[in-house]
């Protein structure tokens, strides 16, 4: 590189977080943000296929889906929804702390998020355990869902249709839980980096994008909760 060009580069790249192939910190941030949103778009497609399968089977086997939905623990489901909403709030506060340059506050809010994420996974584990004990896991040799279709007391639940409900339940909440596990790992890294003072108001892209990921996973649950827990509750 000619020395004059190097001098220009040194002049414009006074921010240590700014990589050499970007013209400005703003351009770098916009590129990272755009990349993150593209990734989330692929995630919408990924979960979208499962949501589509869910809608089709719910339409076909509505009565059996209603009967199966009532066996889920609505109390734990509601608590878990609240826990995830609280974690989204702490993430938003962590990003805000990064914007205002409060190092300790970032770490505290990220840690709170991790704790809430683990509480969510713990409650989910309790719910899964109950399903195994009640023989409500698809593929179990003694799978059985007792009772009848809502509004049709003489029509027993179709076991194959009930298995389809629980297949979708475990696939979708399972994929969601996997995203939570990855999120907890991601946030552990971010907490470590934040504590070591890696982030400042001029550079906090990893926290911003990690936050976008966490909020996205929260939104998936916002849809999973009514779709799986709240079918035919009034019957």
């Amino acid at each position, binding site marked *: 590189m000619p020395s004059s060009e190097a001098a220009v580069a040194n002049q414009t790249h006074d921010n240590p977080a700014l990589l050499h192939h970007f013209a400005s910190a703003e351009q770098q941030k916009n590129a990272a943000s755009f990349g993150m949103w593209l990734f989330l778009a692929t995630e919408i497609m990924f979960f979208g296929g499962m949501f589509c399968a869910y809608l089709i089977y719910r339409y076909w086997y509505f009565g059996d889906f209603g009967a199966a939905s009532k066996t889920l623990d609505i109390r734990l489901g509601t608590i878990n929804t609240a826990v995830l909403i609280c974690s989204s709030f702490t993430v938003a506060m962590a990003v805000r702390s990064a914007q205002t340059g409060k190092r300790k506050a970032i770490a505290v809010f990220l840690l709170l998020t991790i704790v809430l994420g683990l509480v969510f996974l713990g409650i989910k584990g309790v719910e899964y355990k109950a399903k195994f004990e009640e023989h409500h896991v698809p593929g179990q040799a003694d799978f059985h869902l007792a009772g009848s279709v809502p509004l049709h007391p003489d029509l027993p639940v179709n076991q194959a249709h009930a298995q389809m409900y629980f297949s979708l339940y475990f696939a979708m909440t399972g994929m969601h839980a996997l995203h939570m596990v990855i999120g907890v790992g991601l946030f552990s890294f971010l907490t470590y980096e934040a504590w070591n003072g890696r982030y400042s108001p001029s550079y906090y892209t990893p926290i911003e994008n990690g936050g976008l990921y966490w909020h996205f996973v929260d939104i998936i649950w916002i849809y999973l909760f009514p779709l799986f827990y*709240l079918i035919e509750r009034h019957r």
Partner: protein
Amino acid sequence: MSEHISSVKLYVGIWLALLLCTGLTVFASFQDLGPFNAVAALAIATFKASLVVLFFMHVKYASEKMTKLTIVTAIFFFLILITLSLADYLTRLWT
């Protein structure tokens, strides 16, 4: 960089609104609304998701039009997936 920093008050407000909507969706599911039970559940969920996207994910204040374009495109393609699939499955019994 024109960075928008939301107030703590706004974040707390959104947080409480989301918790309130969670209670509302559980309450609504126990009411007999006929065919509108599913509509109410999805409407409340979409309202909650919008709050999260606009305020927690800062899309309301995003200076980049690219962000909004990406989101709208993703939702658009998701709706194509749902609409075309259901246009098949929901009409199979029609004679």
